[in-house]
């Protein structure tokens, strides 16, 4: 089965619809959403409705910190993110907010674990910045592969049977076989707000039969997404950063 996995959509309709088109063209049969459907971007209603539709058709979705913040005022964020969250809260309907609020922290599917931030303390929203962070996450689960997002920069970590770690910056469109003899943490780049210097939208595909994971990059109309952020009165930096992928 071919899975398409999306993280950090952040209400970016242009980016997410481009990724969905590519994923379907590449034969995706099921979808996974790793959280942060909203926040930063200008199209939260569409983003939530689209994910709700996918979930109705069998997709898996987990909670992100921005999704959580829409429902609770207690989540602490920087000023720009907070401004976007408050704007988003006003845009979403009650059923949309309820959908976000009821998303689970983690989901398990066969030997795979899906979580927004990392597996050791999912509710603390820690970033996986380096190999020790990745080792902590892998050690906290018995899943063969953990998928997460949150940091907006793609990376792939593995732990050998002797608990030795490897780290790797994935090459786009080069499938990596996630060998059965070790355990893996696949950190996805962001669909709607990439921060690795490449403005193209990021997602990944997993072939569960061959265990091949492919990181994909999708060019999309970044200007249009940025214009929409500005037109809605959201902080301009949230538009500018899309153009440079930072």
């Amino acid at each position, binding site marked *: 089965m071919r899975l398409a996995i999306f993280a950090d959509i952040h209400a970016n309709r242009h980016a997410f619809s481009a990724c969905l088109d590519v994923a379907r063209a590449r034969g995706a049969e099921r979808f996974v959403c790793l959280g942060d459907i909203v926040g930063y971007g200008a199209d939260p209603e569409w983003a939530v409705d689209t994910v709700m539709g996918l979930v109705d058709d069998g997709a898996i979705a987990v909670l992100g910190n921005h999704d959580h913040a829409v429902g609770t005022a207690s989540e602490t964020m920087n000023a720009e993110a907070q401004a976007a969250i408050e704007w988003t809260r006003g845009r979403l309907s009650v059923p949309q907010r309820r959908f976000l609020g009821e998303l689970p922290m983690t989901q398990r599917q066969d030997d795979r674990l899906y979580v927004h931030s990392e597996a050791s303390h999912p509710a603390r929203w820690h970033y996986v910045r380096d190999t020790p962070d990745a080792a902590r996450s892998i050690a906290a689960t018995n899943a063969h592969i953990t998928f997460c997002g949150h940091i907006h920069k793609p990376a792939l970590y593995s732990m050998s049977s002797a608990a030795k770690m490897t780290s790797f910056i994935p090459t786009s469109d080069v499938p990596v076989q996630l060998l059965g*003899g070790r355990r893996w943490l696949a950190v996805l780049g962001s669909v709607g707000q990439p921060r690795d210097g490449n403005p193209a939208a990021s997602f990944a595909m997993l072939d569960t039969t061959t265990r091949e994971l492919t990181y994909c990059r999708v060019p999309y109309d970044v200007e249009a997404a940025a214009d929409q952020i500005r037109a809605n009165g959201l902080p301009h930096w949230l538009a500018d950063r899309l153009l440079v992928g930072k």
Partner: protein
Amino acid sequence: MAKSLIEPGVELDGFTIGECVHQGGMATLWTVTHPGINVPLLMKVPRVAEGEDPAAIVSFEMEQMIVPRLAGPHVPGCFGTGDFDRQPYVVMERIPGKTLYSRIDELPLSYEEARVIGGQIATALADLHRQNVIHHDIKPSSIMFRPSGECVLIDFGLSHHNQLPDLLQEEFRLPYGTAPYMAPERLRGVRDDPRSDLFSLGVLLYFFTTGERPFGESETLRGMKRRLWRDPYPPRKLKADYPPWLQEIVLRCIEIEPTWRHPTASQLAFELAHPEQVKLTSRAERLRRDPLSTVWRRRFNQGMTVQRAKSDVSEQLASGPILVVAIDTEEGSTALNECLRRTAAQLLSTLPSARLACLNVLKLGRVTIDRTLDEQGNNKHIDRLVALRHWAQPLGLDESRLTAHVLEAVDPAAAILEFTRANSVDHIVIGARQSSMLRALLGSVSAKVAAEAACTVTVVRPPPSAAKQD
């Protein structure tokens, strides 16, 4: 993990196990057959039982990832893999014959034979590096030859694939590999420089031509680290008749700093194919090792041990291409040749490691018996070489980056294409004559080259005003 399923007669994923042909420290090799596969096959099975070397698992995992992605005549074909959750194995094409290790008792080999073997290995390495893979264990026992003469590289357990996770990255405290052949930068943890393989090939060439290993056989880290500052005896010190061009090549391969070695395996293969054109530097004549002052400077110079940024294998290869410029030395080609030189200069200015081969074809008649001397008794071949060098002179290229070749052929386009193929040329620059009676009669050389070459071709045309001046 389950007990090994491998026994003679057992069938696994369609492969029927035959006999065990090798039992090594890391893996066992079995012959296998599969209906519908007609080449001889080998199944490699790692030793993963309790108490075995942990390196066996990791190096098997590397092969499991890398071998199925490799293609071409210089690697064994891969026909299937099995993962650890059932029975780990890789099924590969069985290359007939023995490895180069079987020649060890015959050392030293003749310089000519070593040159040919070195060229075959360099060509295979170039092909491997183009596939983003660094072998990291080049030594006689990982080298075989097909009956057609092509070198085949085997054993990818220590290899690095530039587009896949490097599982050996943090696995071992000490660099893992074959001590006598290991490049110095490997001792500093560098695993992404393809020139590490050129170092190993240089050690092999030194060993095969002198019978001595340049860095000894020490397996201790202390013994291996000496190569970070201590250079070996020049081969001429061991063998007085050692050809200067060969010493130049071998000592360049085993330079301590990767940037002083040949930029790419293709360029090394090119030098081995054209020994008469190897630019001799002070390396060629050297009879002594570096003075102690130099050795001490290397040993205590902090700058040399600074880690460099991660390198991109394909980018590094692309910065050191082999360019060919096809030049017509006939009268009336001045404007075109000027344009060719300008194009070459522009390309070279962005490619600091590129090498340039200037090519001219001395056209032979189909029927007449050509004489190498013209009516005045001048040697046409030499005249053309002089003209090529004269053309290249304004480029101001270091001679180690420049060669000139006069090919004698009936069909110029075919000769240029053959040279390109044999020397793994990356880019041809060729002029097109705007309008000529000859072109109308014989067809265009540049059009045929552009249509049939396997590499990039730039066809240069002089601006219309310049063309008229001729």
